[in-house]
């Protein structure tokens, strides 16, 4: 008998069927991956297993846990199941933990509610659990509020709360999606180490995570099971078309042909740019510190880094959206300075921006036509309206959207369509530089692949230069000619795509690459290469900013700040660069 046996699970909201006849088994102690794109019904299925769907959901089928029916069971019994037999870890620990309660109190409640400890012994068990999930100084962290912890530490607390009652099954719903990649690697290691004989149902959109951590996998498509089986055989010979699409769209950080380097003339040169933000209380936060780089005509330069690396601040300063504390920018031989509204119209026109979340970057009250033609109304005032419409339809066609989309509102678009509209709006003025700030991060794998292809095609046709900000190294590998790696506001390595991925010189660059899960079960997942998290920019470490986490650290690193120097075509800021 399986530990969890779901058959024919169907979930409807009115006429909308979100889960349609899903079968799913989890045996004791095994790990099963539930994979799918957004809207495939993976989280809904998990909520149904815990009996936590909202009142409007119509559920049918069967969910048996350890031989007992969960569907339709009474709340009292379900409460004995939750946490005690089935623990759950949610995606974003900042939202999933109560901001008004100390974390120790939240864990303590789980023990008390299930009668696993009395008021006196509970605290000791909570502290012990916090230590097991790797919180330093657990006695002190017991009294911390969630916002006082870093993202990784918060997720460790969430895992502690899911496992403290020693359940038989752990459901992890996108447990690392809100985390930086080096922290993700640590959390995946922790899940692997700590769960012992607890079965794991891992819900994710990331095939790399499934490949590295699940024995079995189930692929969902629009609420139905497309394919299920042992992970190795699904990856080796996917039978269902949707699985094939997903696998072919999954980008690999460990292999792939690097785009040919571009030999155009320099279009944009950034020289020792710094950005400072003033915090309340007068402390200055150095978001970007003396970063220099150049962008050639027709070239894609990727800026990679984790949260707080300064990658967005850097390009925002270049665009004039935030003030630059020092440094200068030269665009096409002319200085580019001051806030964007004071810049020459032609300069504004030449540099355009695409944001991460198309849903919030498009005005919900405007139709697609209005959104895309708006830049023309500003920059091409005399253009007759029929010509304008022609330009709009032409650019929409280029991004793969037909005339039928002209009259649509943003909420009538899918994520990929909305991002195409955002790109069309940026491209309608025929800019020479396009800045993409995490422009594919919110998209599903298959859509992401199409958008990346679109950008490549536009670049081939028009010689567009692209600054591509991303935290995702697999994406960066597939699209960029050159890569800048930033850490804590500093440029730590800059090199060609080929060099960065084949012979990274900075230990941080290597750690970043090694942290990315590879969507191939044949490649054994690497242990998290670095400990800890990005330092606070208000109080950066002395010497090399990376030294507290660096595996190659030595006395010099904590004292002397490494300068960026050339090493065979790569610029690297490290006292002891790797020799590959």
């Amino acid at each position, binding site marked *: 008998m399986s530990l969890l046996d779901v058959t024919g699970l169907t979930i409807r909201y009115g006429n909308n069927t979100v889960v349609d006849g899903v079968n799913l088994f989890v045996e004791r102690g095994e790990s099963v991956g539930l994979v799918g794109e957004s809207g495939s019904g993976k989280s809904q299925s998990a909520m149904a297993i*815990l009996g936590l769907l909202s009142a409007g959901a119509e559920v049918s089928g069967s969910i048996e846990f350890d031989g007992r029916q969960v569907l339709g069971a009474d709340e009292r019994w379900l409460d004995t199941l939750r946490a005690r037999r089935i623990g759950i870890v949610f995606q974003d620990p900042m*939202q999933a933990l109560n901001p*008004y309660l100390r974390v120790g109190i939240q864990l303590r409640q789980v023990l008390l*509610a299930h009668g696993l400890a009395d008021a006196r012994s509970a605290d000791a068990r909570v502290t012990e659990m916090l230590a097991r999930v790797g919180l330093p100084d657990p006695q002190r962290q017991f009294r911390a509020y969630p916002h006082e912890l870093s993202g990784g530490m918060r997720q460790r607390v969430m895992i502690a709360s899911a496992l403290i009652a020693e359940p038989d099954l752990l459901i992890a719903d996108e447990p690392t999606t809100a985390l930086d990649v080096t922290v993700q690697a640590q959390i995946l290691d922790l899940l692997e180490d700590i769960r012992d004989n607890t079965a794991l149902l891992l819900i994710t959109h990331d095939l790399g995570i499934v490949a590295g951590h699940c024995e079995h996998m189930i692929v969902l498509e629009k609420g139905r099971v497309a394919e299920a089986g042992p992970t190795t055989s699904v990856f080796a010979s996917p039978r269902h078309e949707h699985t094939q699409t997903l696998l072919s769209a999954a980008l690999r950080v460990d292999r792939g042909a690097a785009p040919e380097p571009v030999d155009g003339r320099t279009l944009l040169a950034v020289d020792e740019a710094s950005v400072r933000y003033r915090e309340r209380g007068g402390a200055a936060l150095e978001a970007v510190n003396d970063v220099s780089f150049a962008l050639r005509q027709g070239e894609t330069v990727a800026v990679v880094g984790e949260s707080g690396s300064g990658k967005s601040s850097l390009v925002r300063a270049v665009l004039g959206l935030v003030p630059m504390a020092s440094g200068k920018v030269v665009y096409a031989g002319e200085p580019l300075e001051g806030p964007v509204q004071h810049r020459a119209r032609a300069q504004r026109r030449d540099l355009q921006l695409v944001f991460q979340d198309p849903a919030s970057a498009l005005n919900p009250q405007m139709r697609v036509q209005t959104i895309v033609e708006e830049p023309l109304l500003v920059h091409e005032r005399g253009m007759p309206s029929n010509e304008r419409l022609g330009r709009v339809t032409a650019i929409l066609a280029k991004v793969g959207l037909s005339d039928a989309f002209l009259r649509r509102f943003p909420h009538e678009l899918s994520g990929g369509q909305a991002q195409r509209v955002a790109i069309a709006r940026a491209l309608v003025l025929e800019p020479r530089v396009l800045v993409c700030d995490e422009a594919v991060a919110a998209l599903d794998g298959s859509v992401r692949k199409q958008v990346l292809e679109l950008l490549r095609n536009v670049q081939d046709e028009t010689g567009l230069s692209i600054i591509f900000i991303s935290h995702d190294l697999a994406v960066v590998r597939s699209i960029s000619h050159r890569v800048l790696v930033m850490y804590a506001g500093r440029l730590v390595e800059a090199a060609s795509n080929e060099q960065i991925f084949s012979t990274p010189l900075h230990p941080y660059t290597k750690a970043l690459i090694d942290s990315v899960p590879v969507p191939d079960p044949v490649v054994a997942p690497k242990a998290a290469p670095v400990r800890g998290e990005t330092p606070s920019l208000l109080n950066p470490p002395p010497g090399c900013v990376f030294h507290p986490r660096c595996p190659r650290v030595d006395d010099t690193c904590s004292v002397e700040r490494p300068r960026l120097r050339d090493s065979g075509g790569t610029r690297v800021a490290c006292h002891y660069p790797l020799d590959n």
Partner: protein
Amino acid sequence: MLRYTLLRILGAIPTLLLVIALAFLMVHAAPGGPFDAERRLPPEVEANIAAKYHLDEPLPKQFARYLGGLLQGDLGPSYRYRDRTVSELIGSAFPNSLRIGALAILFALLVGISSGTYAALRQGTLTDRFVMGLSMTGISIPVFVIAPVLVLLFAVKLQWLPAGWTSTESVSRYVLPVITLALPQIAYIARLTRASMIDVLGRDFVRTARAQGLGTLRVVRVHALKPALLPVLSYMGPAIAGIITGSVVVEEIFGISGVGQQFVRGALNRDYTLVLGVVVFYATLIVAFNLIVDILYAVIDPRVRYR
């Protein structure tokens, strides 16, 4: 936390000064003097009176004198009741207003929060609609209607309770004024609690608590109640100050000699120092209770302390 509290207290001082200055100016800008009567007094008498109450001094000097008195708890002499000070008048009236107000607040919080929470947990059901309908009625009916109806029903018809403020100390004389004052508050608090409880119950951390099998009672008590009460808390600051300083209408209807009644009399009698005194007293309480609310906010929401 201590730093936060001290900063808040320091921040409250200028607000209070500004309110006092404005009230002072407005009272002095009112046409006519406190001693103007039908028959004009001889000029020397007028001058004498003005000198006695320092009304002949320039305004800034009068204001400084007033502030100096305030620091010692002296709100000045009453212009009407020649042998009494404003502090004495308010001091004798305040206990009545305070007792009735405090009871009304406790009653309103108890009933309002529990019925609001109950309605939130049964959102969309008949119970919910019934509770909300009732509270909408409570908000819609003005106090000057509720009070006479209650009196008519419980004092005149049923004769269970006294109709007015009996001179003998008895519990029964509190019942009708307290209920009258509390009813609209109950209604408002219930609606506030319900709305914010529904919001909090939909938050991710409540889903987590449910997924941990804590059960509805524990989920509400441990996780949801504190954040759900934040809007109620911000409402209560100024509301408490208003209620314990006495409702003009309720005190008039039940004949209670409270601060509200003093205020009305002061205004009718052109007893400007009394009016000013009541305004300053009221303003101080509002500032004080808002301060308490700010501090309680930081106690409930730890993130506030860092802002």
